[in-house]
């Protein structure tokens, strides 16, 4: 069977319940958040280990904060990974399921890897971060997180090379159902997406941390200034490497799809821009929010590049998200829209409360935030009525 027919046949006959392009946009947006958290988990884990090795007081203090950050980063990374996992299966089901089958062993143990990595990081935070015992737990946790990222990368790589699936699945016509081999990978791509983004993401997070902590009256200015300076230096170095490795990605994987020039310009440009951003702010203490904005913009560019590679790879077989079959289902859309409104307001409220409490203003939450809390909690309660009413409609009217 030709690859093109296979891809078309493997699409789910049910189609998507809304315009496929919308799912594509959701995929990109949620992936950006996902990659931010998992790279921060990796980066903070490295910082923890390095800090405890260095052992002087400032580094220890930083390392302890990072040890606490890692498990939260993994937790949020998992949760924000679920959304792209959902959307990728809606519009790219043929390639996603194929690559999961071809990498079956790793795909099944993937979550065990993540769970063990989380547990290791957590054990270190709880039992070791006070005095640096059990550092091996942190090291092991880091190794597992990197392995998890590697598996994600192989899944992505295999999925965009349908022309090889047959030979990978059944070498000599004999099916190999274990899926234990890493059939495809690109070192420049992983290096770019994982360690380097981890370094920049951690630098940005350090700046956010500084900005936030300085709002407290009892802030330790000297320490925070040191953290900010460190973050800036890390940011500059990592961004330069980032651009360079991005170009390496462009001339390797990019060349397979005639994308070398656009990729080199975009990725090299992102690296340069981030480096310039860090370099330009000689006094980095207050730039946290701007740094975060710049970083999310960069990640969005990277997300688009990943998508362009995928689209180009599949267009060779006339697979195109825009022509994915769909049938708009208003019931689903209503449910998702209403829940989005409720969810976003509740989460905004909770993050604001956390923020206020972190700067020591928890006892006197501003009126407006309190009002948001009252309204959004009421909406959450009302959501249940909506949920059941839609059900009544479905039973009575359909």
């Amino acid at each position, binding site marked *: 069977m030709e690859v093109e*027919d296979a891809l078309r046949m493997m699409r789910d006959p049910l189609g998507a319940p809304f315009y496929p392009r919308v799912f594509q946009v959701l995929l990109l947006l949620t992936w950006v958040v996902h990659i931010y958290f998992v790279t921060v988990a990796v980066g903070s884990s490295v910082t923890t280990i390095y800090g405890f090795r260095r052992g002087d007081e400032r580094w220890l203090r930083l390392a302890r904060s990072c040890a606490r950050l890692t498990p939260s980063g993994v937790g949020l990374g998992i949760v924000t990974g*679920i959304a792209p996992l959902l959307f990728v299966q809606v519009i790219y089901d043929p390639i996603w399921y194929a690559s999961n089958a071809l990498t079956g062993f790793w795909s099944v143990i993937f979550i065990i890897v993540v769970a063990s990595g989380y547990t290791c990081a957590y054990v270190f935070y709880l039992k070791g971060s006070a005095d640096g015992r059990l550092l091996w737990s942190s090291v092991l946790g880091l190794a597992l997180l990197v392995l998890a990222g590697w598996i994600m990368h192989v899944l992505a790589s295999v999925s965009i090379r349908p022309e090889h699936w047959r030979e990978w699945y059944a070498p000599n016509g004999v099916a190999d159902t274990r899926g234990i081999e890493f059939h495809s990978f690109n070192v420049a791509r992983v290096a770019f997406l994982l360690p380097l983004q981890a370094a920049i993401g951690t630098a940005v997070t350090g700046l956010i941390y500084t900005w936030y902590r300085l709002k407290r009256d009892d802030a330790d200015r000297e320490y925070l200034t040191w953290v900010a300076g460190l973050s800036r230096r890390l940011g500059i170095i990592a961004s330069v490497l980032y651009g360079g490795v991005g170009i390496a990605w462009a001339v390797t994987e990019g060349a397979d799809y005639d994308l070398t020039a656009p990729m080199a310009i975009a990725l090299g440009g992102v690296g340069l821009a981030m480096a310039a951003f860090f370099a330009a702010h000689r006094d980095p203490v207050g730039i946290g929010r701007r740094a975060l904005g710049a970083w999310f913009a960069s990640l969005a560019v990277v997300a688009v590049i990943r998508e362009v590679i995928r689209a180009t790879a599949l267009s060779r077989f006339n697979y195109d998200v825009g022509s994915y079959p769909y049938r708009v289902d208003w019931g689903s859309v209503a449910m998702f829209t209403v829940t989005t409104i409720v969810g976003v307001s509740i989460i905004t409220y909770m993050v604001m409360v956390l923020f206020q409490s972190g700067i020591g203003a*928890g006892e006197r939450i501003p009126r407006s935030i309190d009002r948001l809390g009252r309204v959004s909690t009421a909406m959450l309660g009302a959501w249940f009525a909506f949920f059941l009413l839609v059900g009544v409609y479905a039973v009575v009217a359909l």
Partner: protein
Amino acid sequence: MFVAIIASFHVIASHLTVGAAWFNFYVERRAVREQRPELYEYLRKSALGLLVFSYVWGAMTGVGIWQSTTAGNPRGISTLIHNFVLFWGSEWYMFLIDVVGIIVYYYTLGKVDPKTHLRLALILALGGTGTLSLIVGILGFKLSPGDWLHNGEILSGFYNPTFWPQYLMRFLLMQTITGAWGVLMASRLPRDFPERQKVIRWAGTIGLVGMAGALLVGRYWYWANVPARSKALLSTNAFPAVTVDLLIGGGILTAAFLLLASWKPQLQSKLGAMALFIVMFSTVFGAERTREILRKPDVVNGYMSSNQLTFTGLPARGIESEEAKLNRDGVLGSLPFLPAADDIDSGPSPEYTDHRVAVGRQIAIFECSGCHSVSDQTVIHLGDNQLALRQQSALLRKISANDEVSIRAILDNLGAYPFMHAFVGTDEEKDALAAYLAATVEEQQGPPRRCRRPR
């Protein structure tokens, strides 16, 4: 099995989370109303436990189930996703509320004013309940797609015939779990704590009432909506009797414990409450397994079978039955992951010297390996021991089907077993499968007379 274990862990973690969230809301409300700051110490411990175990492990086991079913049964999960992606997306928001919520709840404890913190407790309880609400429809769909099979409407599939009873049942069961959680937590209080007995009695009673209600709803409303074909399954070999024992025994023990708690609260100890939890876990395990087995051999009852082919069409959504076509054209070469018969080499390994056997092996992997160990590759070796799942050669030996002809006759009637689907494919393909199975019987079970009686 692997999936089943992760799954019951997941179910327990998630129900417990919601139960505990409501319980904590109740405790915190009293703490605020009656100005009892000492209760906050309990809340802090509980929140930390939930933060680390329930939420993160709940999430990870959830993704784990998803990933392992993706590997084993991609088109099944694809059906669910293409129907319910926006419901799942809504669940994701609820879950995000849970996760962000517990982080905020824990880190702001004692650092924000009590009313605000109480509101966070309420948000957590509501968010957890929302998560469970949304998953009920998706789970129920696989067993009883209801009108969806005719009208193809996603809403009909979500609010399917077992949705309502299951929703009510889970709500009642949540009371049981919350009650049990309350007993466990209160029994950790010092014995002379003034309200220890009162809380235990109260929690035990709530749990009992919930359980009785759940049983009634389950027996008379839920069961009435389970498709008849699924009920027939319970009396076959496909259904391990131990599951029922687990369910009934666990139910009785749980009830007994709760009864004891509300009747003689002073007898409760930490150990007893822990035992209650273990018993309850195995009950949940039994219940979830039953629900999963009930829809065998289909992935979506009445639409897609476990070989991931749609055996009925869904004209309302423009979908044709795939099986009819494949019986005409053959499966090999017609499906993306299956090579055409001509492309299959006999290969160097002695297992497939004969071309027909090699073709049959491919078919067995495709059509039977979901439920049977077919080749040695799908058997887990532990030293000299093999961990085989319903090994096909052993089953065939048991019914004395040792040669191609008798195996072929069984294949003709495969669809007559309530737990299996009819063979899909052309006659040549059926012959090839018979040839392969005959070869495995001989190779794995030895010549007929030296037959080891399986168990």
